[in-house]
């Protein structure tokens, strides 16, 4: 076997800042060979990105690195800056998470992607333009001639990430480090980019280190997996083995806790507690406080478990790895009967008819309306008491605007919103205040939705005080009950938001939303910014609260697995319109709209066997500009079933014959065996 491209031995990285030194990486060993994709999986603070940055020599001044990093036979740790610079140009290519900040906004994309090669003297400036066109073509960018002279702002998110990949691969590096390369992208675009990384990797034979928190992404493209926790690798193995037979309790628990698109309902099995922060690691095994296998045995607290071989080509850092015998497949308790909770026949709690929200774009001296962004363009929804409606769609489809319009936070341009039998759009302020008691909003980002100057107890009490109901609703005792309901001790009530982790803050956000005893919660991506192991806790909490309090949820999300888990009915939104809506089971089993079909097929499942067998529909292009939507059916330019009729005539939203689902498509129908026949997979121009 040839020597590995990247070989890391007992790497430790410690950051020195204003406080105590923070050990971010604590003894990592790993090898990556040519032609191999190594997936590094971990939650925030696990040290996965720091490990990769150390390999690229990109750590800041205040990081102290020790151990050995051999890249293509040369030592990186302590290397001279000039050598590092040369190696970054030739041996390593890096793809960062956010393509909108990686590119220089003042340089044409074509010049940027060849800049490195020109600087290293491997490309003559006169040849750069042709080279840029060839590079852009190699990452499937349409019309590369014209695109090469455009600026980053003229590129969409997915195209920018393609350009960054082109730049990273320009010098034919032997190692590519991709740090969460698809986290900032939508599901359908993520599928395109993952496909591109896999293909370019095969073509160039480079070694790839793919860092991600998403087990599905790893299952999709990685060959080997390293799971990181608390600054150490806790388990390594081939992707198939890890998903089938995890040997570390953390891996096993992580696989069990994630909601999966291929699983039936039932309760999620979350990992208790919080991921440790690098500055406050527990002694011994850092997973011990959350571990179900160790069971509080003394050895786990006393001794850091070494990463040891447990099977051929497998290693796990657990004293009791042999005892991890939990099936990774989602075997869950039977779904609770939801007949008691749901009353689909009751009059709708919330009924939205033909809702429209248009934002005018004004320009020029007279501030005339030059264009209109149709963020929401004729959306109809119904939610019965105690029911969960999942609203899914990619970013920019208008799902958040829909939620905010229902809350009265955004002015509507048309249609009607009826809540509990009362028309609420356009209500005067005072009357709307009363309605708002019944309807509350939970924000996506728990870091930004809590006032940093208010203790969390005051934050939870704030809605009561605003409505002058603090004493009426039970005062401090009710606040204590609310903390208890969301699984927090009321003793933390006089702390400030910044002292809490993301999951805890989201619990506080939920407690605050429940303070006025609402009937409907609008949940805007409530778990999207949380770590995988925390998502399951919050999802379970929401389900429990719904059962106990008879709440109705409008669950807005882009993650189809989570939506499938929590919803009774699901509506799929595309560019301001609902394209398909139906009962969850039917919609996921027999999607009839081509967009729903593509979305569902693009979700990476954390199961390597299934990933190999799945038929994927990779959509072309990206979400069009909502200010200038395509004529006819908005989806037709990306659709694999589109005909001439779709370009001129918008399809009506109606029941699909033989199913309970509604859809808006001229050519709706279940996927034929053998997949979409009109165009082959990955037919991205």
């Amino acid at each position, binding site marked *: 076997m040839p020597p590995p491209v990247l070989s890391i031995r007992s790497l430790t990285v410690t*950051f020195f*800042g*204003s406080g105590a030194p*923070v050990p*971010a990486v604590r003894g990592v060993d790993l090898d990556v060979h040519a032609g191999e994709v190594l997936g590094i999986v971990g939650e*925030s*603070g*696990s*040290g996965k*990105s*720091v490990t990769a*940055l150390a390999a690229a020599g990109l*750590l*800041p*001044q*205040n*990081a102290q690195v020790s151990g050995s990093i051999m890249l293509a036979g040369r030592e990186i740790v302590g290397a001279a800056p000039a050598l590092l610079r040369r190696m970054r140009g030739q041996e390593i290519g890096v793809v960062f998470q956010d393509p909108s900040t990686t590119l220089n906004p003042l340089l044409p994309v074509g010049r940027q992607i060849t800049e490195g090669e020109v600087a290293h003297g491997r490309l003559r400036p006169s040849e750069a333009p042709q080279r840029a066109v060839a590079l852009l073509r190699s990452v499937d960018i349409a019309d590369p001639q014209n695109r090469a002279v455009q600026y980053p702002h003229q590129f969409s998110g997915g195209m920018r990430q393609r350009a960054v990949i082109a730049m990273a691969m320009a010098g034919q590096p032997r190692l590519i480090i991709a740090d969460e390369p698809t986290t900032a992208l939508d599901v359908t675009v993520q599928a395109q980019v993952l496909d591109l990384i896999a293909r370019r990797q095969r073509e160039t034979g480079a070694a790839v280190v793919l860092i991600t928190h998403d087990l599905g992404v790893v299952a999709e493209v990685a060959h080997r997996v390293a799971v990181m926790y608390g600054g150490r690798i806790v388990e390594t193995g081939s992707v198939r083995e890890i998903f089938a037979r995890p040997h570390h309790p953390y891996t096993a628990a992580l696989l069990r806790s994630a909601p999966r698109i291929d699983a039936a309902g039932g309760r999620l099995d979350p990992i208790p507690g919080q991921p440790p*922060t*690098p500055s406050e690691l527990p002694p011994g095994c850092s997973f011990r406080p959350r571990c179900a296998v160790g069971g509080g045995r003394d050895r786990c607290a006393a001794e850091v478990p070494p990463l040891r071989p447990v099977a051929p080509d497998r290693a796990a850092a657990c004293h009791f790895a042999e005892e991890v015998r939990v099936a990774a497949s989602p075997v869950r308790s039977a779904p609770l009967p939801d007949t008691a909770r749901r009353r689909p026949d009751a009059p709708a709690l919330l009924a939205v008819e033909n809702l429209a929200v248009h934002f005018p774009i004004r320009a020029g001296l007279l501030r005339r309306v030059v264009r209109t962004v149709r963020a929401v363009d004729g959306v109809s929804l119904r939610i019965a008491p105690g029911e969960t409606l999942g609203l899914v769609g990619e970013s920019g489809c208008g799902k958040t605007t829909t939620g905010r319009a229902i*809350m009265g*936070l955004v002015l509507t341009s048309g249609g009607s919103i009826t809540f509990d039998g009362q028309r609420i759009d356009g209500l005067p302020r005072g009357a*709307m*205040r009363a309605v*708002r*008691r019944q309807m*509350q*909003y939970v*924000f*996506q*980002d728990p*870091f*930004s*939705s*809590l*006032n*940093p*100057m*208010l*203790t969390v107890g005051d934050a939870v009490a*704030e*809605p009561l005080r*605003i*409505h002058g109901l603090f004493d009426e609703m039970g005062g401090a005792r009710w606040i204590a009950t609310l903390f208890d309901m969301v699984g927090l001790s009321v003793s933390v009530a006089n702390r*400030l938001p*910044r002292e809490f*982790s993301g999951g805890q803050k989201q619990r506080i956000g939920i407690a*605050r939303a429940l303070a*006025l005893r609402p009937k409907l919660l609008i949940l805007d991506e409530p778990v999207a910014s949380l770590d995988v192991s925390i998502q399951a806790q919050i999802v379970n909490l929401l389900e429990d609260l719904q059962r106990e309090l008879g709440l109705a949820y409008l669950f807005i999300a882009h993650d189809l697995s989570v939506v499938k888990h929590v919803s009774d009915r699901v509506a799929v939104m595309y560019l301001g319109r609902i394209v398909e809506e139906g009962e969850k089971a039917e919609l996921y089993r027999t999607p009839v709209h081509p967009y729903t079909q593509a979305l569902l097929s693009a979700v990476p499942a954390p199961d390597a066997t299934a990933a190999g067998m799945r038929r994927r529909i990779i959509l072309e292009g990206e979400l069009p500009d909502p200010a200038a939507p395509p004529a006819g059916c908005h989806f037709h330019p990306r659709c694999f079933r589109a005909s001439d009729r779709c370009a001129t005539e918008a399809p009506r939203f109606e029941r699909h014959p033989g199913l309970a689902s509604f859809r808006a498509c001229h050519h709706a129908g279940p996927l034929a065996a053998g997949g979409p026949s009109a165009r082959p997979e990955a037919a991205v121009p």
Partner: protein
Amino acid sequence: MTEALRSGLRVARRVFSRPAPAAALAYLALLAAAALLAVPLGLDPLSQDLVRMLEGPSREHPFGTDELGRDILARAIFGARTSLMTAAGAVSLAAAIGVPMGLVAGFFGGWRDAVLMRVVDLMLALPGIMLALALIAVLGRSQAAALVAVGLTGVPTFARVARAQVLSLRRRDFVVAVEAFGASSGYTLMRTVLPNSWSPILTQMVVLSSVAILLEAALAFLGVGIPPPTPSWGEMLRTGKEYLHESPTYAVLPGIVLTLTILAFDTIGRALSTVLEGRDTLIGRPVADPP
């Protein structure tokens, strides 16, 4: 508001752990203490001794005497009272008018924003000293007039700072969240937006203190400040200039304290903004996402 206080103390600790701001603070504390203790110490800025006028430094009068034989040290210390009080009053006045203007303009936007900001533009278009001279011409010479004149020139700065702060907070989730609960605009503005925008306003108050002291001295130097016999640094500089031949040491002390005071406020102001913008610690890429 207790959290505002606690985070203020944290900021203060970080500001004054650096040598230059700490020295500036020590100087200002000394000056304030001298001004406060001047009466108990038996200093009298008004007692005249016409026999010993325009003397150089001596044992009884370490910085000499003025044209009426009054002790220059005592006058400079009492001048600090005038200067610091005028500055504090003027800055408070400017904040009291400017901050609400900025809050309302930024929060409500529309015609309120247009009207208030045009007023601010108008005030900015006039040079501060011109505005102050015009006001004193109307109000007459008095400490109150000087205070109002200096204060009004600071209004536009506070209005602009507060407005910028509101605009950046306006669309933040925690502000939208309070509105989603059904909070009134007043509640949102006073309870949520204002406590989160105090830090740049506070920085402005410190920075403007030095401007106010300078402006007050300038007015006194031009002879339109606080009327005599109240001691004031600007007034002392003006008379010192007239007796430059007879007593070259006359203007030394008032010049030094004026310069040092302005320098001290400026140093603290700059250190404050450095800390509040997070530029004081050298931390590169974050180690991990915030916990």
